């Protein structure tokens, strides 16, 4: 569904490429997490894969077609995106916000049809935000607002869902709820690509993980392949231990400096 091959991305006037030759594909029904240190090129990769940055080299395709050939509205109807940050300037109500997810599918005069209303209601239910559909979005908690934004992305009935750090500043429950939701959506056939700093969330929910460092691929594969101690310590420049959760997923534990020094 979403794919890039040997993608090189450089910001204007930057001396070195922010992403230097990364290949990744996200298929229908699959949940792929992208992780790595701050500034390792995760968000830039996403921008490249969504056609917001012209590649210097390599290709980015969506549904097999080069991303530069998609019109904005066409693209929005196929890929739902939840960007990292979003300031609220003029607060709408929850239902109105979710309706904006239908923009790419509305009629020429922006008329809202039966089908649009139904899709909005489905998205509201799907993300469990229907009970406060009439509330203003500036009166929501962080977790609620995040779910509303996912609902907005789903209202367009996309085939792929892309989330940029969806659980930043969410508590444990909301973090888990978010990933359970995305996992469910992937199991129902959506291609899901999630940028996250939550290594242990990625470990338990992702089918595959792309670990980035300095714009390059440090490792790509199943959680068990990627989340291993030498790679992680190297990439994050910090000692870690890797254990196992009761359900068998790898569990990354950053160590205290003193413990890592081994008592010397």
């Amino acid at each position: 569904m979403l794919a890039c091959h040997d993608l090189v991305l450089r910001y204007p006037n930057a001396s070195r490429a922010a992403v230097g030759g990364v290949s990744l594909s996200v298929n229908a029904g699959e949940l792929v997490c992208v992780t790595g240190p701050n500034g390792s090129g995760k968000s830039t990769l996403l921008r490249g894969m969504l056609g917001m940055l012209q590649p210097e080299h390599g290709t980015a395709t969506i549904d097999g077609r080069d991303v530069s050939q998609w019109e904005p509205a066409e693209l929005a109807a196929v890929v739902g995106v939840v960007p990292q940050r979003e300031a609220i300037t003029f607060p709408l109500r929850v239902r109105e916000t979710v309706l904006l997810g239908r923009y790419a599918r509305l009629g020429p005069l922006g008329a809202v049809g039966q089908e649009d209303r139904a899709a909005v209601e489905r998205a509201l239910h799907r993300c469990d935000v229907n009970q406060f559909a009439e509330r203003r979005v500036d009166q929501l908690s962080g977790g609620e607002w995040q779910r509303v934004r996912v609902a907005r992305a789903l209202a367009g009935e996309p085939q792929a869902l892309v989330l940029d750090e969806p659980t930043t500043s969410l508590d444990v429950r909301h973090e888990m709820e978010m990933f359970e939701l995305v996992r469910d959506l992937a199991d129902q056939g959506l291609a899901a690509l999630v940028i996250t700093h939550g290594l242990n969330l990625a470990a338990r929910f992702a089918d595959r993980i792309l670990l980035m460092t300095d714009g390059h691929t440090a490792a790509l594969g199943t959680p068990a392949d990627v989340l291993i101690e030498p790679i992680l310590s190297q990439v994050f420049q910090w000692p870690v231990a890797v254990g196992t959760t009761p359900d068998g997923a790898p569990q990354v534990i950053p160590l205290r400096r003193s413990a890592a020094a081994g008592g010397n």
Partner: protein
Amino acid sequence: MMRWLGLALVTALVLLLGVALGSVPLQPGDVLDGLVRNSGEAAVIVRELRLPRVLLAFLVGGGLAVSGAALQALVRNPLADPYLLGLSGGAGLGAVLAIAFGGGSPWAVPIAAFAGALVAVALVYRLSVVAGRRLDPLVLLLAGVVVGSFAAALMSAIIALSDAPRLRNAFLWLLGGFSSASWPTLALFAVYAVIPLAVLLLAARGLDLLALGEEPARHLGADVDRLRRRIYLAASLLTAASVATCGIIGFVGLVIPHAVRRTWTPMHRVLLPAAFMAGGGFLVLADLIARTVLRPIEMPVGVVTALVGVPLFALLLRRSLA
């Protein structure tokens, strides 16, 4: 639905008051008579003086409110107003130039003001289009302020260097008024305003997206660059025409969109037409006050919009914060 009905009723009432009241107050019967039958003294006052004036004030007020609402969404800043983007400076400079150096033609000042506004719009646009065809809202704001200040400085220089009585005219003209309203002015403005108004009203959904920010808007399917250019040009052309018609009337474009957002909704499909009606009604009312309170002296309508609007808005702010 009830809100639309209420707004429509209040607007109709204000329009009727605007036609009925003035230096010669008319009975509702006279007004109707004047509208329907074309005879008698009342008919002349209604048809030749008040009706074009009231309709022009309504259109200008509506246009300013719609421009303001659209620009606020475009730059994602509730402080934006239609004149912020260098327009008032450019128009003022044009008007002062026409009065200081121009002939006596009644059309010279509006035409010069319009030209000045267009030059300012073009300059601001040129400065804000970065990296090919992208219009950056923050740069747009800065360019507007810079171009406006430059034009204002030139205007001050000209005022300082030429004689006073003429300049009082320039100054008064800039403060705005509808005393020169006539059917030809109304027709000219109406024909001109239709296109930018239609462009803005049709962009309502797009404005909802732009108000979210560039990235979300793009991901939701908006062609952000094209949309921004279109909205900026339509809003500025509409404002330039209103400046040429009746000078600089502040406050309507800033505050009416806020009032509608706060009391109703920020959704542009509702906000834009509601702001059009509210802005139109408000300016008709302000003009009514301007020409009746101190008659036979006519106050600049821009003074009235602020004197009436500020307390009203302060009240609204307090109530919605409470």
